[in-house]
């Protein structure tokens, strides 16, 4: 069943995995992603990686099993991937969930790099979404064959890298997801902002914001509990905005019923998916960004909040502490009361709030696209070294500061850009 993709009739696959060891620099680095959507964090990252590779002189394309309509011009169907081994080509595979694409890659001979975005622990979602549970278990199981097949791996965070190491990957490096901080600065939807803040029906209380999937492992129900504590102790008018796509139907329905039963229907807004202008309005209206996720491999919205000047209060779990890293308050205590007290402490002291915002902006700047691109190219230099090619000092690669374009041909000569 898992060999269907790419195994075209009459065209034998290339040599089995492991027979072709990488040697030297590739002329082309193609990315392979199971599902490609322009609006999710991995989709944005994949596009930036492609642009970075092309700017550095590599030929680079994106191959995807499922391509969402908005990305049809950016990616090619995986079914069109040549059955013969592509010469002087490396494949960069983005792993975040169980997929038959792994079987396909294990049957090919091109040198493989894995970019690991983490697989949500199945135990966090199994009772809510049994079908997703199976995909997550498969995703974890596939780390072992990928470790045997790939000669190098990238991780969004040190937390993810630790999991790679535990799964048997020997050569790894941390490269944060690529995104442009400037892309967060879009025109605010004034109608939404007015509704939230300035209009006659605007709520006067503290505005809490969380952006992320409405999913059990993101634990918005813990935020609802904390809001209930906060309203009881400090501000009966406080409201919570939960912005993001729902995962399935079981959890969002349970959350809505929970909110209803607590009598917080007027205080908790569940928006679903919204446009960029609306999202900007929510960030502008927010007093604090709160996060109680039980699992995050990185957490881009935290960076978005820090960049946009919204103080961050988060509970420690997985890669959240390392993403925030001094740019916000991270709590070891995961009780709702602790979160409520922390929000009050941050918002109740103007000096703390102001310095936290400044620290958040400083931390967010460390994820500027230019820096992340440089880290990616430096990691690829390491991969070249591992592959046995002529390496150059990593410091000379892509150190172009924030957002500056990378010079073409940074990584070598004779490779045609696209």
């Amino acid at each position, binding site marked *: 069943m898992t060999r269907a993709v790419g195994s075209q009739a009459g065209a034998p696959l290339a040599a089995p995995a492991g027979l072709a060891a990488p040697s030297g620099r590739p002329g082309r680095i193609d990315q392979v992603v199971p599902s490609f959507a322009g609006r999710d964090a991995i989709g944005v990252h994949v596009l930036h990686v492609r642009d970075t590779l092309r700017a550095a002189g590599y030929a680079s394309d994106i191959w995807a099993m499922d391509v969402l309509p908005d990305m049809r011009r950016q990616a090619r169907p995986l079914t069109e991937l040549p059955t013969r081994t592509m010469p002087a080509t490396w494949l960069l595979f983005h792993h975040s969930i169980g997929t038959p694409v792994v079987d396909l890659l294990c049957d090919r001979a091109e040198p493989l790099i894995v970019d690991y975005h983490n697989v949500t622990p199945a135990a966090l979602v199994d009772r809510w979404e*049994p*079908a997703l549970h*199976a995909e997550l278990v498969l995703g974890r199981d596939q780390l072992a064959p990928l470790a045997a097949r790939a000669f190098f791996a990238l991780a969004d965070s040190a937390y993810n890298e630790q999991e790679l190491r535990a799964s048997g990957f020997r050569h790894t490096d941390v490269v944060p997801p690529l995104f442009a901080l400037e892309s967060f600065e879009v025109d605010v939807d004034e109608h939404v902002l007015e509704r939230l803040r300035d209009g006659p029906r605007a709520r006067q209380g503290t505005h809490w914001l969380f952006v992320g999937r409405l999913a059990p492992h993101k634990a918005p129900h813990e935020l609802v509990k904390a809001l209930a504590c906060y309203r009881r102790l400090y501000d009966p008018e406080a409201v919570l905005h939960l912005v993001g796509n729902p995962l399935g139907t079981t959890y969002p329905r349970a959350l809505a019923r929970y909110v209803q*039963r607590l009598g917080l229907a007027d205080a908790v807004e569940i928006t679903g998916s919204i446009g960029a202008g609306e999202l900007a309005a929510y960030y502008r209206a927010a007093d604090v960004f709160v996060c109680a996720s039980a699992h995050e491999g990185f957490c881009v919205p935290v960076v978005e909040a820090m960049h946009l000047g919204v103080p961050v209060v988060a509970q420690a779990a997985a890669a959240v502490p390392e993403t925030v890293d001094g740019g916000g308050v991270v709590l070891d*205590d995961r009780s709702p009361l602790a979160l409520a007290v*922390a929000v009050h*402490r941050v918002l109740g002291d103007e000096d703390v709030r102001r310095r936290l915002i400044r620290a958040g902006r400083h931390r967010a700047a460390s994820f500027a696209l230019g820096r992340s691109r440089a880290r990616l190219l430096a990691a690829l230099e390491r991969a070249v070294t591992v592959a046995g090619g002529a390496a150059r000092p990593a410091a000379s690669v892509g150190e172009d500061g924030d957002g500056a374009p990378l010079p073409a041909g940074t990584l070598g000569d004779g490779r045609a850009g696209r």
Partner: protein
Amino acid sequence: MTADEATNDAEDRETRALLDRVRREIEDEVRARRAAGDFPPSFERKLDELFARFTPTGSADDQFTEALKLADRSAYFDIKAPIGSRRTAKGAARYVLWQAEAWFFNYVVTQLNHFSASVMRVLHLLDERLSELEGQLALAVPPTAGEEVLTPGADVAPFLELLTGRLHGARGRVLHAECGDGTVLRALGAAGIDAYGIDPGTVEADAAAAAGLDVRRDEVLGHLGAVATESLGGLVLSGCIDRMARAERRRLVQAAELALAPGGTIAVVGVAPAAWAAAAGEVAADLAADRPFHAATWAHLLGATGFVAVEVVDGPRAVPVGRVGPDHPDAAVLNAALERLEALAGGPASYAVLATKR
């Protein structure tokens, strides 16, 4: 280092110091609010319990039944895919047809996957239950009617100072299981330690909860399995640990290791087997299914599970013998003899085994 870098570095250090201070203040306020009673622990407990009612599998006890219900609901394959579409352009007809076909198969396969995953979940639960039963059947020796030994658990009072000293500054909440009348919780609270307790439901525990202590009706293995990984700052175990089956005690240590934050302290307060046997009587003790462990056994289990700095602290003697006053001419000789006699008559009645999560 340039002047700008030096300024940034200094600012970064200053911010981190501020964050540390704010975090400490937050922890202090959380403790103070819990201790003052202006934020009743029952409120947080009710929030948890209410959400548990909306989860698909309800409480832990209902998991099997609810998982079966979920499988039942998923075991229906809808052959009519909801394919309503507004696209009517003729030029796109073939493309739409192709898309619809692919979408339809994906739709069916998704349902099949959902069903099979549900069935697998049920099988896993069955497997867990069977494994647990097998373990208990293999280990349990049924007591003879009328000879069952009731183990009341060790008296925690002699260890209160030790526990408060070792758990002071814990990073995260401290759990006491089973907490009984809340003696340990009161002592920890008085020392400024944020603690809560669980108990399967005794009159004493209900009274403690009614008195304002954060006491939840729960059993220790289920509770430790439900708390977030590495979320507890400390863990005190007493009572239940003297009655558990051996396999359960192994699982308990593993669950505790998962639940404790790095650097967290575990304290096992148990009844000394000799004191227990003396109280139970020879026949009842021999026929008892589960008996208290020696302190050394707990120390071994904790060490084997990865805990470090394992330490055993003896409690008071089971049979205290008086001493001759210093004014007696042979006091030294007599007291040495009495001490020897005391050692022969019985060792400590209880013990505490302490260890640290690496």
